[in-house]
């Protein structure tokens, strides 16, 4: 089996508070992998460690068998792109200039027409070309999320990391963003790893799921293997029913489990 992205025994702690405890996984190319888990389980931290936004205390991350921790930051950026959780800007740019930032790992001081053309191509792909001149802060949440996705896509990295890409979106935009990502994965353009809260969205769109609790991987594999009532109760402390709808498991939370504490 080919491996695109591999993490080995990642340990990370903030000021000696352990967040990730020996996290290891392997992801084959052109797959969409969802990381799920309760608040504070280390999903976002794991994603930031992979992109070297945070530096793990130990462990290694390999992309195409190359060690990410020993790469220059620009080289990491050429291999891995990251879509952050949305936030407002203090000095916002217009959409084109915001997306153009993603070309930074590929360009010199002057951006070429080619770079600009790539920006327009991605904006067209996401259907937001007409927003090009709008100010980032004046867009709706869904539009902002797409702009951030566009910026990551023009980076032309094989691996795309996403941190809660759908958390502030209405259901139409959730499906829209997920369909775009699914489509890119299907075309073997990218391998995507995303942290998601919505278990049903993760179940519907991902090839594999990684379920985390307190900095450890509890279960990993296909959604139907990971999303079982037992796993959900032990990880989330929630009793849930699992229903199948066209081969995809969907979760219906029933009630909070009486004992234990939430991760």
């Amino acid at each position, binding site marked *: 089996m080919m491996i695109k992205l591999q993490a080995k025994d990642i340990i990370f702690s903030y000021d000696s508070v352990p967040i990730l405890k020996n996290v290891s996984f392997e992801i084959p190319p052109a797959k969409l992998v969802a990381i799920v888990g309760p608040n504070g389980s280390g999903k976002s931290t794991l994603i930031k460690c992979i992109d070297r*936004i945070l530096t793990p205390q130990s462990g290694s991350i390999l992309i195409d068998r190359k060690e990410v921790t020993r790469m220059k930051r620009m080289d990491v950026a050429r291999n891995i792109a*990251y879509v952050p959780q949305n936030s407002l800007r203090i*000095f916002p740019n217009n959409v084109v200039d*915001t997306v153009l930032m993603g070309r930074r790992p590929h*360009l010199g001081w002057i951006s070429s027409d080619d770079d600009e053309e790539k920006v327009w191509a991605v904006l067209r792909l996401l259907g937001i070309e007409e927003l090009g001149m709008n100010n980032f802060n004046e867009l709706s949440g869904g539009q902002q999320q797409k702009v951030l996705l566009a910026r990551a896509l023009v980076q032309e990295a094989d691996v795309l990391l996403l941190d809660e890409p759908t958390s502030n979106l209405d259901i139409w935009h959730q499906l829209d963003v997920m369909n775009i990502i699914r489509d890119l994965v299907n075309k073997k353009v990218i391998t995507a790893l995303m942290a998601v809260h919505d278990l049903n969205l993760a179940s519907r769109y991902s090839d594999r799921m990684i379920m985390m609790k307190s900095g450890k991987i509890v279960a990993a594999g296909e959604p139907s293997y990971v999303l079982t009532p037992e796993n959900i109760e032990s990880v989330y402390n929630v009793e849930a029913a699992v229903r199948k709808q066209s081969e995809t498991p969907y979760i219906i939370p029933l009630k909070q489990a009486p004992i234990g504490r939430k991760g």
Partner: protein
Amino acid sequence: MTKAVKRRSSRTGKLSTTQEAYKKFVFRKTAFMGTILLLIILLTGIIITLGPLDITVTEAYCALLDKLYPDCFNVDDLTEQVIWNIRFPRIIGGVMAGFGFGVCGCVMQAVLKNPLASPFTLGISAGAQFGIAVAAVLGISVIGGPYLLIGNAFVFALLCSGFIIALATVKGATSETMILAGIAVNYLFTAMSQLFKYFASDEQLRLMTSWGMGDLAAFTWERFPLILVVFVICIPLLMSKAWDLNIMTAGDETAKSIGVDANNVRTFIMVISSLLVATVVCFTGTIGFIGLVAPHIARMIIGGDHRFLIPASGILGAFVLILADAIGMNIIAPTIIPTGIMTSLIGVPFFMYLILKGKRREFWT
């Protein structure tokens, strides 16, 4: 990745309306800078004519060009002397100071991600002021001779920002820490200056006060090579980071994910711009307002791309400073109102007008 993008980028040869709007926007940025540059040249000619000796605008330009092409023009000797040794150096000084403040304000606001940042946020002026106080009251200076005051101002200004940069580097530089530390150091050095003022004689007090108001009178031809060298080194270094600055305004995490080492860039920018500001400040004294406001005005007009924003802030700073200085020199002549006072008196109402007129909630966008 490349495949999908290329497939869709088949050039139709025709630009969409948004694309055309973007091209126009880029053109507008260049046009704006060209216009202000032209205005500076025009203003230079006009300002030279103001003063006790009557000079016409034509004479002013002829005298300036006469230095370059000695035989082409017929300019009388006194006029040329007045222009070259009295009026022109002050204008050039104003242009350089305004440019330096504008550029530094712009890059500092970007790396500190704070619209309140200016060259004086890091206590640079307070440090320089204290340096002057030490030299004036105690007669102690790092460099002796004619550079007694200036040398001290320079060293103490750098000391201030150096302390903050070092602190932020050791503790891990976040922009909030740097601004807080800067304001704290500002208070400390202001307090120490006031302590010195408390014990100073009238003569020493006058020296300290006049420096604190900010004045361009210290610019003479002998001093230019030094300033010019600092400019020629620092400005291209700051400009070379324009892309990284664009990206850093989106936050440190995003910057890192796009390949920009945010902490290194921040430290680099702070070191270079502190050096630049200290060099200017030690000649001019406190002219703080330009560094805060020129970048905001530029950002309102041409947007947030630092490849354009850095030079535009500089040019705009230069323009506002020489305009204010010219008014200060002539409005109640022969009394000269110090440059620093005049820039604030003119600049603040203008800035307020822009805030009120702007449709947006965030006036700096």
